[in-house]
């Protein structure tokens, strides 16, 4: 090699001088980027915070035991509450989650652990992404056509099915992505012990990715808890408490929508109250599931 081209002190002053020249502008750019990031953060938080404040300001006033537990009274007098809607949301969203969680988690496991590369898994992934973007009113129509018309009545089943179709692709995606983050060396450690692939997947990989999968489930539930359009087509909404899985039932988003479209002040206040309850339910679920997962993980650790 040419002696002058060897690394030495040939370029040291040059390199350091040029870096020094850029130093001031680098500091300014650094500051500007930080400020820009903070402004964007505020821009994102302000609407969220103002929505929450507005909902609390307008909705907290109507909260009472009667509001939470009784069915809607006379529209004009404005008494009663949203009991059936809370009950209906719990039933329909609960049922939908019970359908969507195993299907979504298992499909995610398939895509991450068993599918490998090929046309079929790529097609599944593509269709799954399509399903994520499908307008929820279309899914409502599917529920309407397949179940409501078939059994001749708006029903809890139809609503749960429609909501589960919305939730499944979210859970599939998050499960697949989370499992893929689990290092391959962990799986190899399992293989080296002569453990079957199914067992490694369920007992080692899935438990390692537990919190991520759970986040996916919570995200899915939060999404469907606020859906309105598919419920109009499937459970219809009613001012009565739940009677049968084959009959109509109420739900919070439907109730909010109905309250909002009435011309009375007290109806609007009830709508705000119902919105506040919906937000609190999703928040409570989020925190509750996380705490449960944390405690369960802890139990598994101390059990043996």
């Amino acid at each position, binding site marked *: 090699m040419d002696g002058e081209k060897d690394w030495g002190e040939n370029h040291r002053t040059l390199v350091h001088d040029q870096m020094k020249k850029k130093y001031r502008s680098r500091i300014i750019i650094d500051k500007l980027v930080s400020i820009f990031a903070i402004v964007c953060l505020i821009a994102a938080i302000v609407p969220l915070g103002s929505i929450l404040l507005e909902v609390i300001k307008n909705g907290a006033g109507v909260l009472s035991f009667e509001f939470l537990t009784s069915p809607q009274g006379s529209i004009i007098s404005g008494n009663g509450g949203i009991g059936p809607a809370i009950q209906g949301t719990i039933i329909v969203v609960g049922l939908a989650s019970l359908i969507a969680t195993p299907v979504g988690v298992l499909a995610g496991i398939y895509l991450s652990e068993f599918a*490998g*590369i090929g046309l079929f898994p790529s097609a599944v992934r593509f269709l799954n992404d399509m399903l994520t973007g499908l307008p929820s009113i279309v899914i409502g129509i599917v529920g309407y056509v397949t179940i409501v018309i078939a059994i001749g009545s708006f029903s809890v089943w139809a609503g749960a099915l429609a909501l589960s179709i919305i939730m499944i692709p979210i859970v599939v995606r998050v499960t697949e992505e989370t499992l893929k983050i689990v*290092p391959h*060396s*962990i799986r*190899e*450690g*399992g*293989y*080296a*012990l*002569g*453990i*079957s692939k199914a*067992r*490694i997947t369920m*007992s*080692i990989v899935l*438990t*390692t990715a*537990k919190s991520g999968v759970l986040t996916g489930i919570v995200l899915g539930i939060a999404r469907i808890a606020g859906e309105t359009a598919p419920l109009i087509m499937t459970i219809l909404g009613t001012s009565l408490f739940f009677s049968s899985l084959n009959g109509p039932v109420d739900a919070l988003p439907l109730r909010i929508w109905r309250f909002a479209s009435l011309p009375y002040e007290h109806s609007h206040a009830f709508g705000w109250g119902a919105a506040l309850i919906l937000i609190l339910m999703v928040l409570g679920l989020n925190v509750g599931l996380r705490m449960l997962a944390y405690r369960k*993980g802890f139990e*598994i*650790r*101390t059990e*043996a």
Partner: protein
Amino acid sequence: MEGLVREQGREIGRPVEAIENYKVVIKDVNGWFGAKQALKNINLNIKEKTVAAFIGPSGCGKTTLIRCLNRMHEMTPGARVEGQVLVDGEDIYDKSIDPVVVKRRVGMVFQKPNPFPTMSIFDNVAAGLKLNGIKDKKLISEVVEEGLKGAALWDEVKNELDKPGMSLSGGQQQRLCIARALAMQPEVLLMDEPTSALDPIASSKIEELVRSLKEHVTIIIVTHNMQQAARISDYTAFMYLGEMIEYGPTNQIFKSPNKELTERYISGIFG
């Protein structure tokens, strides 16, 4: 080149003693990654309760070869193996053999410690038993204690068995992985550069461990550290570009190798 390989095969692979005297017999093993051949006609016999070291420069196929001995190599997408590997005279590549079951007899320790992240120290060692369906709690806890003692980790962790395996230091984690492998009661233990991610003190503990474990189990170790091979192994195999260049007692390989290539590698001229 092929002729040369075959000739070496005759020299080192054909049994001087009867095959029953060997724990592991590698016969005409070829291995591929896709179209790239990583192992070329490997023949090698390993005696029971000895330590055999595979040495050679990076990319020579030593890790691929060790991964052929518990049927781990073929799990890499696109990888395949031809030939026979006999453990106690039984071909682990025979069609009637379940590759999952092979791994229960032939344990493996990896380059980087890989304890199961959500499990306690106890559960890490018990995992192989529990997840293979053993429910006898007394047996499990006895085997876990034995495994941790075998891996020289017991004294350090006996009071904190319920702590996460990940809370241990790197060297302790590697010994935890050895304990986990020992709990399966393997007849052969494969170690793929088990000290390359560890500091010298942790490494010397593992080396000490290898020397004491060979009274009970046949150990095959891959190492890029020639001094380590010289210190702990009874037999050494030198590999280069996918071929087994020379195999013999460690003393002989390091003091008077038969092949020029081996001598050049050992004396540090290349590699």
